[in-house]
């Protein structure tokens, strides 16, 4: 009962439901892209990072090889390492908890935790969101995979269109400001230009290299692109129209972004 009075726990539960539910779309798209039920479940149980999972099946759906799918998923997982550093400094888990915390370190659990200021709330937010999303994401992946296999011709149901929408939905919250939009445009262009020239799946990796080069040589916000797909504190942000919404929820990232004033 007292646990439910914690704001972080309540945010964690609602973000778990919102994020978990879209596991349905992952499950359905995964089986329609050619993975079987068990491969789909293995991705949700073991990889457990929405962007990387969608990347893996997206490359397979386009006819890419397993290596290309693995590479795209792995490159997209790099940001979880950054989240891990932030959370380790914030929560200081010890012993076996470190290994469990690592597995549930994703966009949403990180955002739920770093959006709190009280250390106890940061702990509760992380664990509630992380465990809650893990459980619901896997349940709904199974539901989606079973429904997807029952659907028949995926094109007739527009499931290839659903995949397009899913990727745009993952990208959208990260397009705050002119610079991320420019990065997205350059990488999209690089992709279209290389599709006819290299094997399927490889254009995505070329775009990753382009994006990494932009990150290496340019100086902008260091938390660019590090937004959760579902923002746990979206409601609160509506009251701060002109301030930068993500920044309040990601206070620890502030110190690493000296050029913030530019924006």
């Amino acid at each position, binding site marked *: 009962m007292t646990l439910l009075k914690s704001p972080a726990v309540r945010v964690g539960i609602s973000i778990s439901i919102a994020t978990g*539910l879209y596991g*349905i779309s992952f499950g359905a798209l995964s089986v329609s892209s050619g*993975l079987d039920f068990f*491969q789909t479940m293995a991705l949700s149980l073991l*990889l457990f990072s929405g*962007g*990387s999972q969608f*990347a893996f099946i997206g490359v397979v759906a*386009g*006819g890419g090889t*397993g290596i290309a*799918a*693995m590479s*795209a*998923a*792995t490159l*997209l*997982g*790099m940001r*979880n*390492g*950054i989240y*891990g*550093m932030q*959370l*380790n*400094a914030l929560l200081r888990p010890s012993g076996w908890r470190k290994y469990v*915390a*690592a597995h549930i*370190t994703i966009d949403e659990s990180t955002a739920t935790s770093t959006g709190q200021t009280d250390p106890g709330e940061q702990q509760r937010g992380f664990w509630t969101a992380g465990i809650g999303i893990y459980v619901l994401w896997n349940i709904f992946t199974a539901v989606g995979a079973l429904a997807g296999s029952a659907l028949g011709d995926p*094109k007739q149901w*527009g*499931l*290839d269109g*659903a995949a*397009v*929408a*899913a*990727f*745009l*939905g993952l*990208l959208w919250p990260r397009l705050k400001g002119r610079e991320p939009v420019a990065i*997205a*445009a350059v990488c*999209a262009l690089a*992709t*279209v230009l290389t*599709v006819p020239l290299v*094997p*399927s799946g490889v254009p*995505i990796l070329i775009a990753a290299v*382009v*994006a*990494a080069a932009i*990150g*290496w040589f340019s100086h902008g*916000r*260091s938390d660019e*692109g590090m937004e959760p797909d579902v923002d746990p504190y979206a409601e609160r942000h509506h009251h701060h129209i002109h301030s930068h919404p993500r920044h309040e929820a990601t206070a620890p990232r502030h110190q*690493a972004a000296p050029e913030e004033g530019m924006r």
Partner: protein
Amino acid sequence: MSLWIWLLVACLLGYLWKLAGYFVPASLLKNPRMSRIAGTMTIGLLASLTIVNTVASGQSVTLDARVGALAAAAIALWLRAPFLVVVLAGAGAAAGLRLMGWN
């Protein structure tokens, strides 16, 4: 079978990324370039995956019902629809356009 192997490799590397964060010295966190690359790469990969799934058919670039899905999803996102509604809008647009005979 080989898909299973790459799938499991992806899972292992994905976990190692996460775990690495908990074991590298905190001083690395002070290096903004690391997290900046992680961020720009996330944007670039998602943009690339969006466009590949919209226009690529194997190694050729085609415009078909998926373009309608992209437009429908963009409108839904602009109207602040939740993720699941965005996905349904994309599926609905692609399925609807095919019913009307566009691919």
